[in-house]
């Protein structure tokens, strides 16, 4: 806040509130979370943040007025305040007071490097996610529905200690070629798509993707599975896609240490994939996770090479590497692993089998 000359932050978004205060902010369902939100007020120079708790409903005039009063009591009206969401009721209640700026200007840089505690929370969430998947994996057989897998995954995750889950579990059946669809705006792969009561069929290649939160910090789990894998081993071509995925991850990790530009990681990944970008067109090679499921640093987005070049790795940054090896006509391989940048390299925060691909 000092660097950006921001005097206070008024935060509404769940991940931001949890980051600023550690409070257990409701996440499900998002419509409830929009209604029933604790608002964080962080005042420069004060050691502890304020939580303006329900009854504060920032969407509604009467409640937004209460929020504005709380802020006015603690922050001078000439101050610059960073806000992440500014509802119409808030605009009305705050009036012309305060210079309002995007909270992301402060939160973005602050969240870039994780403390050891934060990394431990991410690891704890990931571990629960991985353990739950050990129970789900044997269910992946002909006739099981996507929502049946979600049932088992969610039950196990919460029993193991998850506080919330970040996305509806994804168990996407991948086509063998882009021409099969679904149609996309960019002509490349669609992923992730919502799960339904669709039954999986023997031989289907599924890309799974799940996210849990423990103490506000998220996991991000991704693997490629083959339905009925006990009787159907990956083909040579599928295995080659899997090996190529590891080549890309290894080449990327080889570059990871403080001081390196993220553009260098992107180049290493592309080179390891024979000159073809090994990631989803609308996403990235890598993103971080924290109290939000997708945080900076993000590598390979449409922010472009110049952005990636100025994004320099520091100790404490989190990299959720998620390359995608697409082999049009023969499907592809996708998985995600999480790493933290250390003082001289990296450490893994995820640890899960690549079955049915590895022996």
């Amino acid at each position, binding site marked *: 806040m000092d660097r950006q000359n921001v005097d206070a932050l008024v935060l509404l978004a769940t991940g931001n509130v949890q980051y600023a205060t550690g409070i257990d902010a409701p996440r*499900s369902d998002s419509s409830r979370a929009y209604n029933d939100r604790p608002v964080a007020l962080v005042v420069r120079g004060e050691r502890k943040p304020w939580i303006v708790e329900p009854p504060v409903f920032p969407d509604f005039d009467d409640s937004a007025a209460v929020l504005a009063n709380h802020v006015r009591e603690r922050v001078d009206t000439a101050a610059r305040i960073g806000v992440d969401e500014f509802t119409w009721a808030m605009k009305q209640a705050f009036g012309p007071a305060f210079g309002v700026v995007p909270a992301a200007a402060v939160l973005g840089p602050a969240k870039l490097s994780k403390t050891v505690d934060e990394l431990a929370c991410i690891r704890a969430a990931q571990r629960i996610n991985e353990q739950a998947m050990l129970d789900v994996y044997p269910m992946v057989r002909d006739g099981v529905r996507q929502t049946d897998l979600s049932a088992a995954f969610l039950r196990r995750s919460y029993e193991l200690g998850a506080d919330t889950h970040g996305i509806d579990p994804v168990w996407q059946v991948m086509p063998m070629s882009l021409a099969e669809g679904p149609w*996309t705006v960019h002509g490349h792969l669609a992923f992730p798509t919502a799960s339904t009561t669709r039954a999986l069929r023997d031989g289907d290649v599924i890309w799974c993707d799940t996210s849990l939160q423990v103490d506000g910090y998220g996991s991000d789990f991704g693997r490629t599975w083959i339905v009925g894998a006990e009787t159907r081993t990956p083909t040579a071509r599928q295995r080659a896609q899997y090996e190529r995925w590891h080549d890309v991850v290894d080449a990327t990790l080889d570059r990871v240490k403080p001081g390196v530009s993220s553009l260098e990681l992107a180049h290493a990944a592309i080179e390891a994939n024979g000159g073809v970008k090994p990631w989803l067109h609308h996403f990235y090679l890598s993103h971080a996770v924290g109290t939000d499921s997708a945080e900076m640093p993000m590598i390979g987005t449409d922010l*472009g090479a110049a952005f990636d070049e100025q994004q320099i790795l520091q100790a404490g940054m989190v990299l959720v590497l998620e390359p995608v090896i697409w082999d049009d006509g023969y499907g592809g391989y996708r998985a995600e692993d999480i790493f933290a940048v250390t003082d001289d390299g990296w450490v893994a925060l995820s640890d899960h089998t690549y079955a049915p691909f590895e022996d």
Partner: protein
Amino acid sequence: MSRRRTNHEHCPLWITGAIEDGAQVSRERLLEEMETDELDALIVGRPADVRFATGARQLWTAGTRPFSPACVIVRSTGRTHVLSVSDDGIPSEVSHAELYGLFWNPANLAAALAAIPGLPEAKRVGTSSSAPGFPKLIGAIAPLAELVDGTGAVWRARAVKTDAEIDLIRQAVSVAEGAMDAMRAALARGADDRHMLGVYLESIALSGTPIPPTERVIRRNDDGSVRLTSGAFVEGYEGAFTRTFPLSGETFDVTVCAPGTTGAQLKAAGLTAFGTGLGAEPPVIAPGVGDDATLVAGGVLNVGDAVHRDLVVIGDAPIVLTNYAGRT
């Protein structure tokens, strides 16, 4: 209108066209309210609003996010434009040209929005919320536009439920009842909270509807009673209710859910309430908020107290949708 091949093609409500038909009705309601408020365009950011405007079923994510344009409705063309990378889960009424992709770069998002027919010329643009950088983004795309509060139009359009919507809420309630049964059975076995939460989520997911309206499902009271809140979504419509076990046998008089009743009156009766439809909606009647809110006929209300909550259709003869144990 041809139906697209999607992951949803085996879902009965999509096969029959019910989802598409419902979306058409909702879109027309929105356009009517946009006319009332003289909005040339409406930009909404929340998943439920996107669903209401288009019928789109997108991947569910938890928590709230800063405002960003997820759907644009243009009055002059009557068309909806959606932020979606693929057409999966998008009713075929929304053409491919009306989908804009996911961008991390604001310049690319701005270019995509600028290509929406009718938006650059718009003079009054309603939004469902805002963020500090947003007026500048819109100013670059629609230089003539005055940014105004679009929430009135959205909430008025969503407030009164059609028969089809109430039917979906009833289906969600049915799923929630099964999950409540499962939790009670677990409770009877002496299950701890984590296990009961797991049982609840498993139950709704096995019904094909894995998304929970709230994760605050179980509360153990000092007197040993246990409060359970069960809920589910069917095609985005929520059905949730609360009971405390053992049941006390007492419950509130639903005649209070008549049109014209104010929030202050509900609170005087010891009740709190919030609207229900595509999730939680206005009005919100709770300590510190909603005194002046007025119940509208045809709305659905989640109403009750800390012990017992029901879903009620507001009307001169209010209809209880959650006739579960404790309210029969």
